[in-house]
Structure formats: C-alpha cells, structure tokens
C-alpha cells in the first residue's frame, strides 16, 4: 500500500506541473461546457455535445495519459529507479491507473451534470463511463509498455485514439462507418449514452464491450510479456 501511495503521490505532484497531461483532463469537459451553452441548433438531440465529447473524452484522455506517463518513465529511467526501490510492476500500474481513473471520473462528473442525469440514468452513466475509462487505460498501458520511448508511444497512440474516438461521431454520417464502428467499445458506449434516458443497456452492447475488454487484456498481456515494464 505504501508503494502504491508513493507512486500515486508522485503522479499528483508531477501532473500539476505536466501541462501536456493535465490539459487532457480539462480539455473535453471545458469544450463540452462551452459547446452545450454556446451552440443551439433546432432539432439537435438533447445534450448532443455533452454526449459526443463524453465519448471522445473516454477514448482519448485515459489512453493518451496512460501511454504518455509509462513511456516517459521508461525513456527517462525513472521507472527503473522505482522498480529498484521495491515497487512492483502491478503496484506501479495500479497507482498510475487509479490516478488517471480518478481524474477522468472528475471530468466525467462535468458531463453528468451537463446531461442532467439522475437516479438510474446516472448510475448507468457512471458505470458505462467508468468501464470505458478502464478499457482505454488498458489500451494506453499496452501502448506505453510496448513503446521504447515517448515518440514511439505517440506515433502509436495518435492513430488508435483518433480512430476509436472519432468513429462514433463519423458513424452519424456514414452507414458503413457505423457498421464497422459497431464492434468497438466506444461506439457501444456512445449508443448507451445516447439511449440512456430509457435506462436500458442492450445485451449486444454488453457482449461487444466485454469482447473489447478481452482483446485489450490479451494485447496488454502480450505487450507486458514481450517488453516488461522496464
């Protein structure tokens, strides 16, 4: 527990001074607040921007933060110093993951307020977004572990993040994209968030999200076995 607390504390101290990571937690909630209040179009679905940016936030922030933090620590050899101080790889991953999860959930609370969710709808919103954040973190951790340095991590993170995060938006305009995007967890989370007033989650969404989680876990395990955390 002491080691987890130490890495968590390190993350708090470091992120406050790391604008690149810190902005990831603020950008989407701020944009969503601005868009929700500034753009009013007739016949636009209720809380359109809040739901759209919530999905983008889930797809981008945890993934890019996780991969950036791990790859930077690998590149600068601070991770090795931690490992040699009796911090175990799982303790490090849990600490960084918990930190990003909390920061993202704080961001998600802004979206929950914007969407005016209450009761069961709020529970579903919290549950879905939390699971989405964990899945994105898993993908980010796999990229961070697999990459040798920050440059390599960015070159992998960027296309993956763009494809996953933008596909729910693009699928609104194109049926083919909609079909393909349907197999991703973000599209399913988008579907759930858009139908949340009915307080229902389809079995199909659950299966696809679970399958995505399994794939994420396999990729993470493969990256960890191949490269390790150092």
């Amino acid at each position, binding site marked *: 527990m*002491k*080691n987890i*607390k*130490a*890495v968590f*504390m*390190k993350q708090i*101290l*470091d992120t406050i*001074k*790391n604008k690149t990571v810190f902005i990831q937690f603020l950008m989407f909630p701020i944009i969503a607040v601005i868009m929700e209040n500034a753009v009013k179009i007739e016949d636009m679905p209720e809380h359109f921007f809040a739901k759209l940016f919530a999905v983008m936030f889930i797809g981008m922030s945890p993934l890019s933060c996780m991969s950036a933090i791990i790859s930077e*620590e690998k590149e*600068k*050899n*601070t*991770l*090795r*110093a*931690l490992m*040699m*101080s*009796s*911090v*175990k790889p799982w303790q490090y991953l849990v600490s960084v993951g918990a930190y990003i999860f909390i920061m993202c959930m704080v961001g998600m609370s802004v979206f929950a307020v914007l969407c005016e969710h209450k009761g069961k709808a709020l529970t579903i919103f919290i549950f879905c977004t939390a699971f989405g954040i964990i899945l994105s973190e898993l993908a980010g951790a796999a990229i961070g572990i697999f990459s040798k340095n920050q440059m390599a991590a960015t070159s992998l993170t960027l296309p993956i993040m763009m494809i996953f995060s933008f596909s729910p938006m693009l699928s609104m305009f194109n049926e083919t994209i909609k079909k393909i995007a349907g197999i991703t967890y973000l599209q399913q989370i988008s579907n759930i968030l858009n139908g949340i007033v009915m307080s229902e989650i389809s079995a199909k969404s659950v299966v696809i999200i679970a399958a995505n989680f399994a794939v994420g876990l396999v990729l993470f395990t493969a990256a960890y076995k191949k490269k390790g955390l150092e």
Partner: protein
Amino acid sequence: MEAAAISASNIVKSFGSKRVLDGISFTVRRGQIFGLLGPSGAGKTTLIKILTGQLDRNAGTAEINGLDADKLTGEDNKKFGIMMDNFGIYERLNCYENLKIFAEIYGVKKDGILNALKKVGLENAKKTSAAKLSKGMRSRLRLARVFMIDPDILFLDEPTSGLDPATADEIHKIMLAEKGKGKTIFLTTHTMSEAEKLCNDIVMINEGKIVEHGSPQEICRRYNHQRMLKIHLSDGSDIQFPHNENASDKVAELIKNGRAETIHTTEPNLETVFMELTGKELAV
C-alpha cells in the same frame, strides 16, 4: 563467521552469443570500499545488475548479506541502496519532491530527506526544479536518494562520471565519510585515481574477465618492474630506464659527467598496470 557483504562466485552472463561476464568471483568485506574497474563496456553495470537481482545470470552465485541475489524480496532491497548513472530524475519536480517519493516508499521522515540533501550539499537547492540542476547536482541528488535510506550496502555505478574535479572530490569525501560509519560501498569506475584514493580492494575486469584483483597498493607492487627512472639532461633531452640494480651505475655516471639536471622516479599505477594487462587504457 559473519557473511561477506557481497560475494560473487563464477558468474557467467551472456547476451545472445556474446559472453559479457565470464567466471567472475570475488568477495566484498563489510565496511570497505570495493572498486570494480574496467573500461566502458567491460561488464561493470551488468555485474551490478546481477548482484542486485535486476538481471538473471547464466551461471554462478551472487549473494548480498548472505542472501541469493535472485531471491531478494522488496524488504531485502531496502537494505541496500543503488545509484546507477542512468537512473532517472523527475525533471518537473524539485529536489525535495524527488526524494519525497522514495522517502514514502522507504518510510523515511521529512528530517531524513532534509539530512540527505544536506549531506550532498543540496540543502539550498531543495526547491529547485530538477530540470534546472547541473550534471554534478543531478549526481548529488541521485546520491541523496541512496543516502536518505541509510543502507548498509551502497552500489554506486560511476558516481563521478563526467563531473568536474571539484565536484568529484566532494563526492569522494561523502563516500569516505560513509565508509567511516561502517558502510560497505561497491563502486564501479573507470577512473584509476578515484580507485586508488578510495578503494580498499579492487577488481579489474576486461571483456568480462577478471584480469587483476587486490588492494591498489598490492597490485602496484606486483608490477614494480614498471618503475622507471626519468632523468632530465642538461642538453634539454630526457632519458628513461628501468629502476633496477643496474640503474645506479647509469645515474652515477650521468651525475659525474654533470649531464643530469633532475632525476624522477615513475611508479606503476593502476592505469599503467591495466595497460600492461590488456593493452587498453582504463578511461576509455
């Protein structure tokens, strides 16, 4: 009998087909500074990694405090401190914050952090961002990280590499003070003057093999044949010859003829010994 602080027996390590350590054996007694000397790429860092359980070996045994290096637990790790030249520093954090992270892991209180900063002369830089530290200050911060936990055994991998002589001298003083407190220091270096000044015992390695072992004085004595007499002559030229039983006649003749202006002896040192053994310079 008390277990040796560190012991290595017939350690072999290969990376692919390349053998980087070949039959390395030595013992480090408690309370001494042990030097591992060798040029860059000789296998020094690999050996530290094996001794501290960071890297598996292909054969042989490695023990710290009588414990197998492969079976060290997190708690065992807290009994020795490691300063590797390539250990990173959190650039965005200040010196105090950098140490605070590790203090939390090792259960060191605020006073311990401040004392460590004072010990390495960084007490006035505790709020300075690590990104703004000079190379020497960064080395000191890495050392503070090790001293803060007050371990019995310290592994210091090239602690003065690339530092100016004044900073290196300050670090030497800190190391000698730690030795004075009964700490065991395992030092890797390719600076022979550093080894001569600090170490009780040294091992010289080259291409993964031990080429010489003993105290710096013993080793130099073994290579006494390297002792030379260097005479500066009145015509401005210098002559040099082995300092042996035949030397006195030559010197007497030069003095008698009034040709000798100054006479110096050159003693063997670790650099010249290593050169004789391997044909290489240490500081490569």
